[in-house]
């Protein structure tokens, strides 16, 4: 199944047959004081800097979040999106639970965006899915519903099925629903990582949809988080993960994902891998001279 995202004539395809799609997570004011302060004053220079850095580090899509408590989210999200569109041409992902903010961004966006996200709660789906349809976007469906996060892979499959079916009710095809199986924290529950991996495998084989993951949650509260996150992405990719909301400016993430593409048969003659190696060597040489 192919989830196609666009920005004007630039196109990104999320699919098991294409390179893994990194959705850059850095444009998000939560826990980033400087960014939050500047965004709150409608200054988007740091947003633009983050956009450029992430794209040059390999992000094919950029997540844009403008959730600042007490601020006018529709205006800020729209402003941030305009700012990002001014410096990059990659497709965007709008990150908000506020339908007004989503619509403010969707209405000015020149292409097919990704919406992050809806849960399988009826109150969320009935607000978000009409927007997905109206603006011909794609949406991330997070597998949690009125009764919380299901404990078993079978129950998570049922929630994923509900998301795909409700989307179909609104005329949204399954390829435009990307399922997020929710990475819970292994520091609090040692089995949490495994349940999510098993869920991914089951949902991929049953529904064939694309899968995304906000992966960094998995390592919360533990030392050497980067290594855990990267290993988790690799394990996920083997089970059908085709995109992740993550930080491409972390070198380990970038190289591991590229190695995964090679090992999953998505890098003919290892050309991307070799080119990336040469770029690293060149950067090293430049740093030494």
């Amino acid at each position, binding site marked *: 199944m192919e989830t196609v995202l666009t920005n004007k004539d630039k196109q990104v395809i999320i699919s098991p047959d294409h390179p893994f799609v990194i959705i850059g997570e850095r444009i998000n004011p939560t826990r980033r004081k400087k960014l939050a302060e500047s965004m709150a004053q409608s200054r988007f220079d740091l947003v633009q800097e983050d956009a450029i850095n992430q794209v040059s580090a390999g992000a094919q899509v950029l997540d844009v979040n403008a959730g600042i*408590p*007490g601020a006018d989210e529709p205006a800020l999200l729209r402003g941030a999106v305009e700012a990002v569109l001014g410096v990059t041409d990659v497709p965007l992902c709008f990150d908000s*639970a506020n339908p007004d903010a989503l619509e403010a961004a969707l209405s000015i966006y020149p292409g097919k965006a990704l919406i992050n996200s809806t849960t399988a709660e009826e109150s969320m789906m009935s607000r978000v899915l009409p927007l997905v349809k109206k603006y011909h976007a794609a949406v991330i469906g997070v597998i949690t519903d009125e009764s*919380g996060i299901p404990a078993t892979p079978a129950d998570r499959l049922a929630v994923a099925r509900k998301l795909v079916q409700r989307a179909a009710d609104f005329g949204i095809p399954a390829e435009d629903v990307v399922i997020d199986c929710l990475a819970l924290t292994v520091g*609090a529950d040692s089995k949490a990582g495994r349940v999510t991996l098993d869920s991914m495998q089951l949902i991929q084989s049953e529904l064939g949809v694309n899968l995304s993951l906000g992966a960094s949650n998995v390592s919360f*509260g533990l030392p050497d988080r980067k290594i855990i996150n990267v290993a988790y992405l690799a394990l996920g990719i083997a089970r059908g993960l085709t995109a992740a909301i993550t930080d491409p400016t972390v070198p380990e993430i970038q190289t591991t994902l590229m190695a995964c593409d090679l090992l999953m048969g998505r890098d003919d003659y290892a050309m991307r891998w070799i080119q990336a190696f040469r770029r690293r060597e060149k950067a090293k040489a430049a740093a030494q001279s």
Partner: protein
Amino acid sequence: MELKDIYENVINGQAPAVEAGVKAALASGVAADAILNQALIAAMDEVGRRFEEGDFFVPEMLIAARAMQAGLNHLKPYLAESSIKSAGKVAIGTVKGDLHDIGKNLVAMMLEGAGFEVKDLGVDVSPEAFVKAAQEGAQVVGMSALLTTTMSNMEKTIQALKDAGLRESVKVIIGGAPVTQDYANRIGADAFAPDASSATRTVRQLLGN
């Protein structure tokens, strides 16, 4: 010597050893409040300190809290007998619309470890449920939110406490990744705590112990 062993076993998260240690100490005539204060609470203070310093990680804190809990369960009947007063009553929960519970659970465990009577209201807790807990005698209401989209429910809960005429009789403490001291000031909370260990210290301060 026995108390020192219990103390070490709590820090190392050895629940069965803590339980056995508490039983042995009681059998040899050590006072229940001495076990509580010098072993269990002292150990959780140390765990909190290590966590704040970055020497301890979340799972270590969780198993230490579980070990403390195992000891405390065995100790409780003896504490009631000797009429030891609890350090205070705290109701805690993650606000409406928010399902994140790790931070909230850690705070609840650390508060119990510090001798507080904790009512854990769970996740997705409505303002009305917090109000009810305050009516039922909670002296402190603790709220957690991990999402910028659910933080505003902290303000709504404070308003609900005001509407119920309870705001003057309870202290409100808040926390969670997007929450800041500024935000606490803005919505009229009594305190903000950045982590579970400082939350315990702050609650002690709020209640003047």
